[in-house]
């Protein structure tokens, strides 16, 4: 029986394993050094905030794996020999494979900052990171102030987490406005204000110069590059993005760049070795997508696809329309299609922007100014239907159609107030100004 070994038990690896099991009788083994069972990484924040216990983050009960004949092996791989098809573990164990799927995910970025290895300095990615956070920032007497470096999605989640335990937070963001490499200005501004409303000390256009050591190798303070200001703190969160977690793969024959290089079939340069999820890097980017997509959804989609290929139905990774979501404190965010921030915005892309007076809801609709084709939507504080926008993007609807049919896409709970009329008015007004 063919033995499929999957390195990594995150959403990518587990999705691949589940689909291979559905499609075949192959022997399947999932390897993880992080946790015995699959858990939802995105839910770690809720454990710290006391919304859930760790066991609640596990999407499948523990009996699921044995019942579905998916072997789980806990351990770290030290070397990977593609010639003999044997994996060598750090404790001396060996495991041979017929097909190998690399799904090792990411690790937090560090940029060689002075002091980045001190006690109390960490990212927020793994279960171990969560455990360390409980040691260094359990409450506001042990951690009198926390500093977060890097204004992305993990940074703002970490700010929300620390805030829930009433730990004062200083949030250093390199950009001039929160996440404005992705979000258009109106949205980014609104989130800036929302962050400050939660009593977060938000510092825009601020870079980290160094992290200062106190007694016993513990963090004492950070120094800001621009102003030279020193901020005393007991915890530093490094959340300046993530990069592929592939150190041990770099020692093998498998070709890597930032991530493990794969073709459209998610195949590496070595036959029978595949890479999926955060750690995979497309040799050529697909459409407007980045060549490395460190997103839950794309990891899952790659898992679905590679299972087909491994089970003799060779399939390219050919994702549908882009979508994503996040939550900024109390404000939910969804996006469908492409809406660019001011930096990477193509010339033809025009925006309709509407914001509610309460400063917690807004939408931006992007369209092609030459053809009026609808390109995408960012929605904050209003839930929208994935299925409807996916269909409209496929049908290449124009922006008038989308604006006039917005109520079909509304996904807010029953009895919620609707804002379609206000959005249509904003559209008309903006057209007149243009």
């Amino acid at each position, binding site marked *: 029986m063919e033995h499929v070994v999957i390195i990594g038990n995150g*959403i990518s690896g587990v999705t691949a394993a589940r689909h291979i099991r559905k499609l075949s009788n192959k022997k399947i083994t999932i390897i993880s050094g992080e946790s015995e069972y699959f858990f*939802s990484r*995105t*839910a770690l924040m*809720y*454990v710290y*905030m*006391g*919304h*859930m*216990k760790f066991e*609640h*983050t*596990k*999407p499948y*009960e523990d009996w699921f794996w044995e019942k579905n004949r998916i072997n789980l092996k806990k351990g770290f791989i030290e070397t990977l020999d593609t010639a003999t098809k044997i994996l060598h573990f750090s404790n001396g164990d060996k495991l041979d494979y017929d097909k190998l799927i690399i799904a090792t995910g990411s690790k937090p970025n560090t940029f060689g900052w002075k002091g980045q290895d001190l006690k109390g300095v960490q990212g927020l990615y793994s279960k171990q990171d969560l*455990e360390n956070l*409980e040691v260094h920032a*359990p*409450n*506001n*007497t*042990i951690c009198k102030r926390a500093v977060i470096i890097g204004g992305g999605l993990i940074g703002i989640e970490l700010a929300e987490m620390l805030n*829930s*335990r*009433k730990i004062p937070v200083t949030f250093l963001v390199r950009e001039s406005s929160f996440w404005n490499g992705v979000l258009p200005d109106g949205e980014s501004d609104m989130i800036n204000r929302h962050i400050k*409303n939660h009593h977060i000390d938000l510092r825009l256009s601020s870079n980290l110069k160094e992290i200062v050591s106190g007694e016993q190798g513990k963090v004492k303070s950070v120094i800001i590059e621009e102003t030279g200001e020193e901020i005393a703190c007991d915890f530093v969160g490094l959340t300046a993005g993530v990069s592929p977690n592939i150190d041990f793969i770099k020692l093998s024959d498998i070709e890597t760049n930032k991530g493990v290089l794969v073709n459209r079939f998610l195949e590496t340069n070595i036959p029978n070795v595949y890479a999926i999820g955060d750690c995979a890097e497309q040799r050529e980017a697909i459409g407007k997508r980045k060549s490395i997509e460190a997103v*839950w*959804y794309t990891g*899952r*989609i790659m898992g*679905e*696809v590679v299972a087909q290929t491994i089970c003799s139905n060779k399939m*390219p*990774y*050919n*994702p*549908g*329309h882009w*979508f994503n*979501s996040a*939550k900024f404190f*109390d404000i*939910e965010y*969804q996006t469908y299609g492409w809406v660019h921030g001011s930096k990477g915005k193509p010339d033809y892309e025009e925006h309709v922007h509407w914001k509610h007076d309460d400063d*917690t809801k807004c939408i931006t609709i992007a369209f092609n100014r030459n053809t009026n084709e609808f390109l995408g939507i960012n929605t904050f504080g209003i*839930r*929208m*239907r*994935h*299925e409807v926008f*996916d269909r409209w993007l*496929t049908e290449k609807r124009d922006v008038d159609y989308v604006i006039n049919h917005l109520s079909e896409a509304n*996904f*807010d*709970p*029953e*009895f*919620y*107030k609707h804002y379609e009329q206000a959005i249509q008015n904003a559209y008309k007004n903006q057209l007149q100004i243009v």
Partner: protein
Amino acid sequence: MSHKPNQSMSLAKPDAQDLSVKQKIALAIGFTGCFILVLALFNTNFSNKGLFLTLSTVLITVGTVIFSNDAYLNTSKGIKNDGVWFKSISSRGILGWLTGIFLTLFYIVLYFYPQYLGLASDGQNNTGLIALFDPLSQLLSGRPASQWFVYGTLYTLAILVFGYKFMLKYRDNKHEKLRTVSVMFFQLAFAFLIPELMYRLNSDLPYYDLKSIWPLNYYNFERYRVNQFIDAGDVGLGLLIFGIVSILIITPILTYKYGKRWYCSWVCGCGALAETVGDPFRHLSDKRQIAWKIERWVVHSVLVFVVLMTTAVVCSYLGNDSSKYWLTRKLFLGLVTAILTLVFALTMIFKRQELGKDARYGAIGYFVIIIFLIGLHYFSTNTTLFLFKSETLRTTYAFLIGSIFSGVIGTGFYPIFGSRVWCRFGCPMAAILGFQQRLFSKFRITTNGGQCISCGNCSTYCEMGIDVRAYAQKGENIVRSSCVGCGICSAVCPRGVLKLENDSMKGRINPTEILLGNDVNLMDLVNQK
């Protein structure tokens, strides 16, 4: 630094979760109100009972209002579950267990030893706690209080004050606010005020909470009540007919249109208590698959039990002579058999493929048992019914299901098993509504394409123990008989994945293997098999 390290994943309580000074004062005010009740229980003879009852009620209300305002109004609108698993009361800690034990003891005394609460024996005056409620009872219905009046008053008060707290907690969510106003209204008006006022207008009528429908109201068709209804003239007869119409006509229509939530989360008193007082315990429900299996067998067994019991009880007072009264014992049994056969046949013909294997076996098994027992009686003339005396069935049901299950376990164990234990495992009304919701209803919880991140907030906060995430992460709508449609899964979802909806029956159950967002060809290939 002399601070103790407080470094647990969840067990130890981070200091930030402590109560504020204002909340402590509010608790003191509320407990002072409760203390007046305790004093009354120990036979303190208040000179002016009306005054002290009012004082107690006002203190409890004021305490809860101040507490809620301080807990929620100072924060931004949004989900308020910070520290739920760190607090002793809401994570099966010492406070949780103590509360559970206290409530359980209270229910045991209430159901089985009301004399300890001060219930008068024949012809004497009430004492203790029950006497404290005499003035209010006299005011409403003109008679002294009973243990049920005391219980009803406290029950209603609890729903009102904790309903206020719930509305502040979910003040960003209009659906939750409206639903809570609805259950507060139905409890105050239909369960509490109207029956008392009806008694004042026509003292022949039995106590009748109009929203409490058979089989939840399992005693509705017992002999003494039916006699009282009939003796009370047209109004009584109207109420009796309303009771039958409620379950046979009104309930199926509303459940078809809106799912069982129209009852369980908008009208029902048990649901009202679970959603308001029980809200801090909703996450304690058991989510394991084994719990779901037990639930299916227990709740449907209770339904079979109540059908048999009611049939037997009604039979026991019907005659055999059709010249005296048109509804004879044999005709009644024939009708019951006809209805059950019709339901069974329709389900098996049209919905057979939607039933799981164990559901099919269970349905066939129960159907055979019921028809066998009814047939046994239909063709015999002895006085025992279904092998047991109808009176034995009735008292057994009243004790096991009516008292122990719905009261002692159902509510007493809130802080241990979560707030909907009765609704999930015991309520025969929920079983009927759920059966229809699963097979003949427009209601479903829609999943939003591929947006689920499997975080598990929905499953954690489902009071009915449904593993909502298991469906959401497959992009599959949630169509479950036990779902009471409270809407909290949708509220706590951080990615906007869940929406409660009434839509067409077609495509309501939509299992998918490949989620929206992937290659269209692959989705077609795999999902349309």
